[in-house]
């Protein structure tokens, strides 16, 4: 079977990053469910795929990869001529896409991940920490607000992997984490989220996730 296998849970954020990439590029895939509720990801068989015991991981013929951002980059590059162009048409444009992907990992996710874990998944969360993280997220979103005042998408005129990589985290912010006002209060970030989440690939992913 030549179709890429994705190991993970469709409702989980990081697998969604890869699934969204597949859907935007029109890449066929198969999801092998790894049940996070029963800690299947920590079992020895899975640790062979991802040594930290986290999802997603992929298997594509002989190629095995983990880290959703690395997987997305690989498929966006391999299938550059198929589906949505996620990396830009020139090396320089790709550099700008990569720049904002780094921003997602180093500024956005570092704040959003603990926020979501605390608010959504931790029974009695650290209130002071959450407040501190919200202040930090405010500062990050202010930078985005400015960037998106002059640019339709983060890396410029076109939707790219830089925008896509934010979408699973943004979905948590808007939904379970109850922080939607941080987005809706910012005209340009709000517009950006509305445009991205209206994309057919995103709608298909939401259908698959069946929240």
């Amino acid at each position, binding site marked *: 079977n030549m179709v890429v296998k994705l190991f993970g849970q469709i409702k989980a954020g990081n697998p969604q990053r890869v699934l969204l990439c597949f859907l935007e590029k029109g890449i066929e895939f198969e999801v092998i469910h790894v049940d996070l509720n029963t800690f299947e990801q920590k079992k020895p068989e899975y640790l062979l795929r991802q040594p930290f015991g986290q999802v997603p991981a992929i298997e594509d013929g002989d190629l095995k990869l983990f880290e959703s951002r690395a997987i997305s980059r690989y498929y966006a590059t391999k299938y550059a001529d198929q589906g949505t162009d996620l990396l830009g048409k020139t090396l320089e444009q790709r550099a700008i896409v990569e720049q904002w992907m780094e921003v997602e990992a180093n500024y956005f996710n570092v704040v959003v991940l603990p926020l979501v874990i605390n608010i959504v998944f931790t029974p009695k969360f650290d209130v002071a920490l959450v407040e501190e993280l919200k202040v930090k997220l405010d*500062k990050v979103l*202010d*930078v985005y607000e*400015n960037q*998106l*005042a*002059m*640019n*339709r998408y983060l890396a410029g*005129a*076109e939707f790219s992997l830089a925008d896509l990589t934010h979408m699973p985290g943004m979905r948590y912010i808007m939904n379970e984490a109850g922080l939607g006002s941080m987005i809706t209060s910012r*005209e*340009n970030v709000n*517009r950006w989220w*509305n*445009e991205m989440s209206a994309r057919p690939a995103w709608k298909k992913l939401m259908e698959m996730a069946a929240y």
Partner: protein
Amino acid sequence: MALVLHTYKGNKNADKALIAAEYVGVKIDVPSDFAMGVTNKTPEFLKMNPMGKVPVLETPEGPVFESNAIARYVSRLNGENSLNGSSLIEYAHVEQWSDFSTLEIYGNILKWFGPRMGFMPYSAPGEEAAISALKRGLDALNTHLTSNTYLVGHSITLADIITVCNLNLGFATVMTKSFTSAFPHVERYFWTVINQPNFKKVVGDVKQTEAVPPIKKAGQPAKPKEEPKKKAAPAAEAPKVVEEEEEAPKPKAKNPLDLLPPSPMVLDEWKRLYSNTKSNFREVAIKGFWDMYDPEGYSLWFCDYKYNDENMVSFVTLNKVGGFLQRMDLARKYAFGKMLICGSEAPFKVKGLWLFRGPEIPKFIMDEVYDMELYEWTKADISDEAQKERVSQMIEDAEPFEGEALLDAKCFK
């Protein structure tokens, strides 16, 4: 000979050529002594444009009128650029959207806005037809922009410059947020394009009108063609923006500050001393200031921005202060100010020092400049050595100021 553009300040049609000039890297002079209704009625002007309308561009080879034609000419100066598309079909689409925008967008905005300002006779069915036609045009534009960031190709072309300047007239005068919210892609397009650096340089800060201007009742003085243009009101006052004609000026009240008893201190002398002192600033300029300062005829004020926690991005903060100083233009005869933007990282603190004619902050400034209420104002007590020293430090851009580095210091003079 440089290129000279004759227009009144804030003419959205003139912006097209000026923005194109930023993109192609060409200098255009805009004489500041242009007087609407006067300059454009002279025989010399009518030789350039028999309609007596603005803008008109003077080139080494002769004049050009019609704002779109001027912009097209400018777009072809200075060699290759992408303003006209990169193929014949792209060029055709640039012309397509420029014509569309002129007829369907600008034409209908004018038919809505013009009668309300008294330039043309008002009729309710006429306005309704114009609004309906405008909506049809905006709908078509919105559909195109759903899957296109720019009108043609993947970057700014003359079509975007012309269209956004046309939209700007609408946004400034009759198109409120509730009207444009039916066209979300047009909104996104307008705001992201008008915030591009080459646009911002020309148009400055843009605010969407909050209300449609009321219909001028019959009999209201609307003799715009005869009246000379007053000193340009700040562009931020959207309902006052005029397309080609001018509101009849109300009888001009004398500024109460002109009626104060004369003062030995002459503001212009201080401004000259400030500007010309290149070295030994403290010994020459600051000393000179305190020597000439007249506490009876003038007053000194400290201001602090009330919302410093908003100042997270340096250039946005600097723009805010720049906008404030632009809007203070009407007070230039009566004020001198220094605005310090403090801090080595966000949030930045904005602190100001102002010298005003008279013992109080002039009422006309409080009324006309909306930024004033964004600041806390305290009168400086110069009998207090610490406050006097603070005044001196703010005039001389002392760094560090109150323990902090200065991101920037802007002077109003």
